[in-house]
């Protein structure tokens, strides 16, 4: 092996080491959330919902799990929109995929029930 090859190999290893394959696909999450926070209105909220849905739809296509919290956040927004049953389904998906979310999601459900009383 000559030095040039060794150099390429080293560079490759170095690059891989620095930029590991992300575990999750987050799409436009942080930029749509940023836009929403910068000017919270119906339009920016709808855009953020859309990027959540994109993550949910695209992740399996990339053979990745939906990232932690995404199902719960999407479900939460749906419930705020009045789509309660659909929202609750996403809450359950969060628990199935990430059992450690159970206490938190249950809390969200309890609050929803409490709000209805």
């Amino acid at each position: 092996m000559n030095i040039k090859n060794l150099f390429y190999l080293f560079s490759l290893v170095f690059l891989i080491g620095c930029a590991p394959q992300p575990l999750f696909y987050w799409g436009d999450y942080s930029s749509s959330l940023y836009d929403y926070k910068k000017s919270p209105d119906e339009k920016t909220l709808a855009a953020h919902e859309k990027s959540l849905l994109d993550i949910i739809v695209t992740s399996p296509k990339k053979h990745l799990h939906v990232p932690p919290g995404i199902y719960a956040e999407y479900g939460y927004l749906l419930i705020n929109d009045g789509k309660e049953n659909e929202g609750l389904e996403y809450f359950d998906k969060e628990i199935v995929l990430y059992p450690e979310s159970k206490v938190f999601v249950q809390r969200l459900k309890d609050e929803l029930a409490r709000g209805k009383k």
Partner: protein
Amino acid sequence: MKTLYWIVLASVLTLWGCAPQITKHEFAPKMYDQHPVSILILPPQNKSTAADAKEYYSTTIAEPLTNCGYYVYPTEVVNDVLKQEGLFDTETMLNVPPQKFKEFFGADAVMYVTILEWNTQYLILSGSVTVKIASELKSTTTGDVLWFYDDVVSVNTSGDSGGAGGLAGLLAKAVTTAIKTAATQYVPVARDVNTKILIALPYGKYHPKFNQDAQTMIEKKKKAEKNK
């Protein structure tokens, strides 16, 4: 052979720098004892002069933290729940014992973020955006600090467009600098800081290298001064 020597030497210098090095395990042994799975990120404490820093920073942290292998509670929803519980400001939250967050959310650890710097410097012909962050993880079972780290990134936003010389050119350049600096959102800079900080965090359960990084070398840090 001599060339190889230099390459190796240069690489070693690049990788190690001059800062003292330590293994992740030595730096944060409690992370390897307790292996927290789920992390609750509290709204950051803002010590910078930018009032909106807090809101914007919180859009950047969940993604990289999940890519380190942790379950991260959705920050927006968490903020709403905290508000419903009457916890509006970060200072109040700091006084809540970490154990409470286990009870509330089921979280294994809480991440406390402090924004130390979030500012723009305008000079006539150049500008820069600086973000400095300190993070700390506390166990919700023992209340102990499991891990901490901090870092800073400064990005030059000079209008480097060349073009006309003379006074007109100089003025044009000054205008470009101001525009570019104003338009450069802090968010990408904050993301870079997150990357630099999270490199020092042991991988979580969902990462393929979970529990295999104990001997990874990182730069040794002392706890950042929070009251700068």
